[in-house]
């Protein structure tokens, strides 16, 4: 266990170094100049060069990278070019909303995915199986902004059941989380269905049935425990993905998550924010996967770390 954790930690360091190098290089490869975005159209050439010098952007890129990493090691993510605020402050201000949306989205993914997947797996070949699978396919393929606007229009604007976007209590969370949950839940249900179908063919399930257990207990206790493993891995991935922000859903619902911060920073090439968000996302992906791996042995005791 300890050995597993140590080796994972070692891997993570390499992943994070790789991520910083690639993001940094990409930010400088983009054919656009952050200083021009800051300076606007009426700045004199001298002003532009002054700003470039003050930001250290007149130095060679490798030197800038080394400076960045040195500061990073000291826990300093730098200051935003545009906002002049600490990047850590900006990201921290977005974290609660991002984490809340992530939790809500994963809740709906599991709710939709597990229910639909188990339902379909236990009725294989029946009409209801096909209907559920078609529905899941629609859920996966529907563009998020469309689903988002549709839910918002129907449930918030016409039926007045939810607020028209915004951030606050549980009421605000349900529609954006559901929008994300419909997409992810579609995936989960397909994975769950095939995984459950495999498990239900196993000998121990036949044994369980033979000894007279109720079908419900066979599926939900004996079957689910094994069938859910691939879904756990997917949740681990989703933690990372949602931490880097759900740009589309955030903008439809006016949800102040990390995605909006990243999107606005990309428009103006605010490199410190872009770097900060990418790093946060990378850390979250690493942690999410680690979490999924750590949880697995509790579900399936055969797995040892």
């Amino acid at each position: 266990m300890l050995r597993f954790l140590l080796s994972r930690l070692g891997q993570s360091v390499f992943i994070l170094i790789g991520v910083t190098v690639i993001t940094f290089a990409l930010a400088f490869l983009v054919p656009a100049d952050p200083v021009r975005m800051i300076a606007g159209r009426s700045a004199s050439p001298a002003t532009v060069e002054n700003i470039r010098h003050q930001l250290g952007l007149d130095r060679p890129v490798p030197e800038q990278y080394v400076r960045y990493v040195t500061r990073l090691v000291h826990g300093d993510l730098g200051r935003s070019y545009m906002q002049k605020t600490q990047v850590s402050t900006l990201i921290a201000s977005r974290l609660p909303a991002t984490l809340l949306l992530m939790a809500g989205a994963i809740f709906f993914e599991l709710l939709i995915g597990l229910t639909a997947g188990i339902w379909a797996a236990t009725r294989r070949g029946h009409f209801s199986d096909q209907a559920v699978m078609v529905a899941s396919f629609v859920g996966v393929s529907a563009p998020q902004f469309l689903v988002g606007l549709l839910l918002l229009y129907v449930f918030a604007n016409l039926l007045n059941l939810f607020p028209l976007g915004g951030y606050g209590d549980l009421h605000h969370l349900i529609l954006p989380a559901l929008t994300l949950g419909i997409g992810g839940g579609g995936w989960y249900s397909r994975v769950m269905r095939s995984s459950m179908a495999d498990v239900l063919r196993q000998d121990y399930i036949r044994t369980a049935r033979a000894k007279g257990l109720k079908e419900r207990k066979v599926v939900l206790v004996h079957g689910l425990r094994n069938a859910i493993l691939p879904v756990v891995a997917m949740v681990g991935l989703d933690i990372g993905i949602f931490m880097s922000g759900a740009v589309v859903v955030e903008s439809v619902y006016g949800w102040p998550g990390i995605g909006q911060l990243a999107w606005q920073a990309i428009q103006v090439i605010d490199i410190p924010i872009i770097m900060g968000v990418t790093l946060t996302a990378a850390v979250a992906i690493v942690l999410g996967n680690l979490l999924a791996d750590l949880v697995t042995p509790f579900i399936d005791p055969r797995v040892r770390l």
Partner: protein
Amino acid sequence: MKTARSMLLAIVAAAVMATAAATAQAAGGKMIVTFKDDVSTLDPAIGYDWQNWSMIKSLFDGLMDYKPGTTDLVPELAQSYEISPDGTQYTFKLHPEAKFHNGRPITADDVKWSIERAVNPKTQSPGAGFFSAIKGFEEANSGKTDKLSGIVVLDPHTVRFDLSRPDATFLHVLQLNFSFPVPKEEVERLGADFGKSPVGSGAYKLKEWTLGQRIVFVRNPDYWKKDTPKLDEIEFQFGQDPSVALLRLKKGEVDILGDGIPPARFLEVKNDPANKGLIVQGNQLQTGYVTMNVKIKPFDNVKVRQAVNMAINKERIVKIINNRAVPATQPLPPSMPGYDKNYKGYPYDPEGAKKLLKDAGFPNGFETELYANNTDPNPRIAQAIQQDLATIGIKANLKTLAQSAVIQAGGDGTAPMIWSGGMAWIADFPDPSDFYGPILGCGGAVQGGWNWSWYCNKDLDKLGAEADAVTDPAKKAEREEMWRKIFIKIMDDAPWAPVFNELRFTMHSPRVKGEDSWFVDPVHIPVHYDEVYVAQ
């Protein structure tokens, strides 16, 4: 008797209505404004986009301002001012009652220190160059000294600017946010975070800034201008999708659509009788144009540039954007001083354009590139231009890119043609010289500049400098005439093909009231926050 009673009733009714109208106008109430994007900073030395520009104007005051809804200069923090006959000395008396939000009176030292701060390279102000006429600018802007010798404090309430050249735009410069006095003690206390916790002197104070969510302004109770502002509070909400904001406005949850009516829903919203009286139309100090890089063949040939001007069907492009603009004939927009009402511009004449191309030695046209911003409606406009050019034989390949990439290509001089739409800037101040220097003058035709046609006419630069040396307010019309001639001369050389001047449509909730001009103020976008009020 009966008549007398009904007359009495009528008088009473009229009196009641008048009182009701008066109460409706009384100060108070709260307004909600939505925006899609966050506000980056509220530091007047740094903020330089259309969104924070007017917010900063409500938190801070400058020596000069414009009469609400107009482009007429009036003194603000200045109680009075004097210009020396040669136009190189400007002396201002400060308003004695003006105070910062921390209670300290504003002095001449604050005026001096704040402009020195904006010019100091450490501040990273994009507006430093606007102060280049002040003596000692070079030394201060290069960081050799942190003082500007050209700003002289005569007494705590009198400050004099010594200019190295007469500058007719200088009063405009003193209404730019970059010149606004900031309290030194607060800037030093807060450092770089001043932009997130600004302490100003304006009609409103910052009450709350929840990053990524909202900013709340509250009335400054100690404001020296009586009866200003009219609202108690303004809440700005961020991250709001414009179409959702529209739904919320219809429900009465929102008062002003900061980003305007979503283009895709424009006609539907505008033609809906329910919205009558809620949409105010106005002009914008904006021109949409195509630049032709005179350093890239064949646009070095004036006939080719004129042919492009004649090939573009501006009426059709205006229709494509649902008549949210009027066709343009010249670089200056109609509401800008110096605009030539009588100048008709190049006619739409594809045959004539073909003939010009033939004369220029391109009977079969040529192939080139047209750059454009990739946000709607700009790709559609660029496609229309592409089709128009194709009819005279010019094959223009479209390059629709992110804003920053288009700006880069323009400033590097690698783009033969650029459609200017979607670059998210507006005029800095309502004066023709602002439409010349950065975007048509030699000063902007440099690496990283914004003169993307790279047109540099030394004679016109000289004429422009002469016009800007006319500082006597009595000779305003003469100066405008000088600028008018410069822009018409530019049209002869045709480095641009002006396409349209955008109109502005501001939508507000029924409860927000005010004069129409406050909702389409040329400088305060989306509305003049200090002036509009809500019906109680």
